[in-house]
């Protein structure tokens, strides 16, 4: 009797301990998956087959794993971008646009620089340069929003959304005009292929997973270090948690806001550059949208912690990547994936629901991610 009580209280303690870190996200995912399964069942699909397809497609073979990593790479960068902004009390809905800008400029450096210079560059210079420029342009793109926030109070949510549209139109403009691939067989809006010297090698022959993936992991670690171990990180977090106190403490709040936004943009820009230099070797005007939103979901799911983000990025990558196999086996629409992801996000955002379902007590105070329009 006595011992049993103790054991219960013990497990309880353990549950509580885990719950803060990973239990809630885990349960959120679990619930969403179960719900998704029920939905599949009701639309006449076979949930087990569907999920089997997802798993096979994501992890079934080395090739599948490699593809999952390929998908995860931009997700990690973009997720970090949003998370960093969160830490600084800013909400960057504009990863989409910053990513596009980064991609365009990496591509430009990638294919055009040798022509301009009139000679080929060694990879050791060309590749880093291409990535760097893309990154910086992404940073600049977001930095504008940061500047507007700091000096005019224009709210970053609206401004990043607007900048998304501007980025989309501008890239369309460039890719249909001066940057268009003029080779006779091409008809669509895309840049020429970038020079060999600007391409990132694959890690293993025959698999598409490239060093950009390793870079993503390193950057994730770097961001963790930056946020928690450096004075800059201290400033970013302080401004994020209490801008007034930060100002009283002599931190240059305006500068920090701009810097945070710019850093966030640089990470998003990196996502774009890496896609270009590591995977597609050109920027193409895709129909697909949603990196920006997926990034938000990933940042929330990962609790804005770099490690959490890497894991969340893998989850989303696995789902996106497994989708092909799932379709092949079940002919279920891809939208299913977006829906399950939306559910996950829903449950993570409103963890109260999860806590209610699984009867878990809340612990610690809520963290405020964004403030209304106050600016």
């Amino acid at each position, binding site marked *: 009797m006595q011992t049993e009580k103790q054991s219960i209280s013990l497990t309880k303690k353990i549950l509580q301990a885990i719950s803060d870190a990973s239990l809630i996200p885990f349960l959120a995912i679990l619930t969403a998956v179960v719900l998704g399964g029920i*939905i599949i069942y009701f*639309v*006449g*699909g076979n949930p087990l087959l569907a999920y089997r397809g997802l798993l096979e497609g994501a992890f079934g073979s080395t090739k599948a794993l490699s593809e999952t990593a390929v998908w995860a790479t931009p997700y990690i960068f973009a997720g970090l971008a949003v998370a960093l902004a969160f830490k600084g009390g800013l*909400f960057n*809905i504009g990863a989409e646009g910053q990513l596009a800008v980064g991609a365009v400029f990496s591509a430009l450096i990638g294919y055009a620089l040798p022509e301009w210079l009139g000679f080929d560059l060694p990879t050791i210079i060309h590749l880093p340069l291409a990535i760097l420029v893309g990154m910086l342009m992404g940073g600049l793109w977001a930095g504008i929003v940061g500047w*507007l926030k700091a000096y*005019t*109070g*224009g*709210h970053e*949510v*609206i*401004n990043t*959304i*607007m*900048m998304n*549209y*501007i980025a989309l*139109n*501008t890239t*369309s*403009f460039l890719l*249909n005009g001066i940057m268009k691939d003029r080779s006779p067989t091409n008809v669509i809006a895309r840049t020429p292929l970038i020079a060999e010297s600007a391409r990132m090698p694959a890690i293993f022959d025959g698999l598409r997973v490239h060093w950009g993936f390793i870079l993503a992991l390193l950057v994730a670690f770097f961001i963790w270090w930056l946020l928690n171990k450096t004075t800059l990180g201290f400033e970013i977090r302080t401004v994020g948690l209490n801008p007034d106190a930060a100002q009283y403490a002599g931190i240059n709040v305006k500068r920090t806001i701009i810097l945070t936004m710019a850093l966030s943009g640089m990470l998003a820009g990196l996502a774009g550059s890496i896609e270009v230099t590591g995977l597609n070797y050109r920027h193409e005007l895709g129909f697909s949208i*949603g990196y920006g*939103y997926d990034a*938000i*979901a990933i940042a*929330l799911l990962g609790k804005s912690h770099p490690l959490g983000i890497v894991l969340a990025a893998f989850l989303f990558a696995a789902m996106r990547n497994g989708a092909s196999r799932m379709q092949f086996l079940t*002919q279920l*629409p891809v*939208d*299913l*994936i*977006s*829906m*399950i*992801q*939306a*559910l996950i*996000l*829903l449950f993570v*955002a*409103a963890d*109260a*629901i999860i806590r209610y379902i699984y009867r878990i007590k809340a612990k610690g105070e*809520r963290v*405020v*991610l*964004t*403030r*209304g*329009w*106050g600016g």
Partner: protein
Amino acid sequence: MDWKRFGFIALIIIVLFSVVVMIGQAKQPPLLIVTSMLATTIAVATPLTLGALSGVFCERAGVVNIGIEGMMLTAAFFGWLGGIYMFHIFQLPPSVSIVLGVFFAILTGALMALLHAVLSITFKVDQIIGGTVINILAVGLTGFLNRQLFFGSTSVFEGSVPSSPGVLPTVHIPITELFASICNSSAACLQNVQAINRVFDQKPIAMGAILLVFLSHYILFNTRWGLRTRAVGEHPQAADTVGINVIFMRYANVLIGGMFAGLAGAYFTIESVPSFEPLLTNGRGFISLAAMIFGNWTPIGAWAASLVFGASQAMLINMQIFRDVIPPAWSFLQESYIVGLTPYILTMFILTGIIGRTTPPAADGIPYEK
């Protein structure tokens, strides 16, 4: 009223119109161009206006709503779907199905809003995150159902998209009749009357939106409901201490907001074009959000702002139509990618507060804790 703001808005609209008139008069009488543009402006502004009203009600009560886009999209889908079901499954006459469709759209908007309310008021989820959830969910849900219901073996309609019951009819306002007598059958005059008539050749939701703008303004600033709504959005504690049920007021207004968004959704699939497409709202929800801020959280202001967006859209269309008479000096106006940026840049410009600070309700976005 904030004359600086309205002056600025009027100025932009006038500029946009005069550009088109200057270029177009080579082909068309200015009157016709102006009325045609006015008509387009009003039509394009309709969903933006309704979306903005949705935002105004939510945020005046202290709940930030960036989920307008998602609410619109979902409502557009279910309104359309409802109409089709009524029409095909329940065999109701088209007219009835259409009207019911509108109700379904409004209901859907309200339900999405309920979700937002539960998240942001009861669970105190960060309201901007809550809105984002709504947006993402909307895309997934509508895309999935659209595929699942209208395609392939599983679909209710054997894989084909059935004909919708149609769209709301144009409201006839007897402008022509009124003026015809004055014209006493002078052809030119009648032509002008026709031109003017074009402005009023709008559909119920477009017309209704304008009425709703003024109604909302009256409700917000001259009725008990409005006073309490604003109180809850400005200083919930104060409202609480005089016995106003803050939670109830917030829920109610978010639901009202949802209904506006729902009506906006209905505009797309039941008034404008009787078909649904994934992502058909195309970010208009975000533009209406901008319009709301642009209009400083007042219905009339938001409407004026929506008209600006409408006008710039109308200009773009006409620039394409008059492509061959654009003088070389103005040829940049054909770069529609670039000219297409006008509304977005305009919005960012407004947000700088150069033409008067926009001041959100004091408690906007802050969950109420006793």
